[in-house]
């Protein structure tokens, strides 16, 4: 029992360190390019964050349509405020907070409550109802980390990207035989390749 508790503590400690300075720097560059009117940078930003933004309201229990509304609203706000964001390298946090804020607004509205008008007011109410909120911090951390891992995956070479995606991100997970066939190597080579690719991914996420 103690071991399990210790493992949980270790996992939580590690969780707070899963970060990538590469990803943050790339985010900041995208924001700077957007400010200069670069449509390509904006498109990349949208592609990069679309999954995370859409997942936050869905995981909070909103319908697909409501989640789509939150998604569009977050990007509209980002578009309107892109010149005012003070720390472009922290755009991920800004996006998560905004999506959380707008999700919570819909949840409150559907329950007939008054919707707070400012972010501060909303944050205060969310904090006071933390236990009842479907968007607990642990879940948001998990979603952010999954986003980071996907962003880091794009920096791996094609073969590693494919191996990792097939084994860990496909449903159902591909067998070593299937991965071997897909990338044209023997089944027995997959285990060491998987291990090397995972280490490379870990290195990208070591910031």
């Amino acid at each position, binding site marked *: 029992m103690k071991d399990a508790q210790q493992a949980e503590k270790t996992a939580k400690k590690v969780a707070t360190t899963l970060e990538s300075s590469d990803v943050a720097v790339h985010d900041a560059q995208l924001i700077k390019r957007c400010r200069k*009117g670069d*449509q390509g940078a*904006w498109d990349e930003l949208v592609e990069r964050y679309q999954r995370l933004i*859409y*997942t936050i309201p869905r995981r909070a229990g909103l319908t697909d349509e409501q989640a789509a509304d939150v998604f*569009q609203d977050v*990007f509209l706000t980002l578009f309107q405020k892109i010149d005012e964001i003070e720390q472009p390298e922290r755009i991920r946090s800004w996006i998560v907070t905004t999506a959380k804020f707008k999700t919570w607004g819909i949840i409150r509205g559907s329950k007939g409550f008054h919707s707070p008008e400012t972010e501060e007011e909303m944050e205060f109410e969310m904090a006071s109802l933390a236990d009842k909120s479907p968007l607990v911090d642990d879940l948001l951390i998990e979603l952010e980390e999954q986003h980071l891992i996907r962003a880091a995956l794009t920096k791996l070479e094609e073969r590693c990207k494919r191996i990792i995606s097939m084994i860990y991100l496909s449903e159902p997970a591909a067998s070593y035989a299937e991965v071997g066939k897909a990338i044209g190597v023997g089944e027995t080579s997959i285990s060491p390749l998987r291990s090397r690719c995972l280490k490379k991914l870990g290195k990208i996420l070591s910031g």
Partner: protein
Amino acid sequence: MKLREESKLDLIVQRMRTDISVDAPPYTVKYAKNLFRTRVTEPKQTLVRRVLGVLRVDLAPGTAAFGERSATAGKARQMLYESGDIAIDLRVKPDGKEFEIRGQILGLGFEQSDVEIKSDKATGKTMTDKMSEFKLVGLPAGEYSLLIRNSDTEIVIEKITIS
């Protein structure tokens, strides 16, 4: 240190295995990308195809409509333009001293697209919705040009007289 590294890799694996996120619907992604168009101030050389819409049908208000959708628009003047394999259904009706234009692009890929209307006296901008429909209001009488633009095609309709 090694244990810490292994823990991190374990966490990465665990996060990937529990990742049940899905892509946002394509129409919302398209909407988000299109938002930025109004910001792009420097026109760049692009491969956007520019095509003219040609008037095929022009029905005065109260005339039998050309489709179920138009059946209720008895007070509207109805026009149908064609541009290659795309058709544009426009309905113009008075709104007080001004006019309102409702339209729909009948063709693929014009959801969440930019729509602009211009005359010497007025301009208007909007976006099409999920059904490629749009509405422009508060237009004074005059001769207008209408521009509908998605990522690779611009449809231009010249000389729409509203009176």
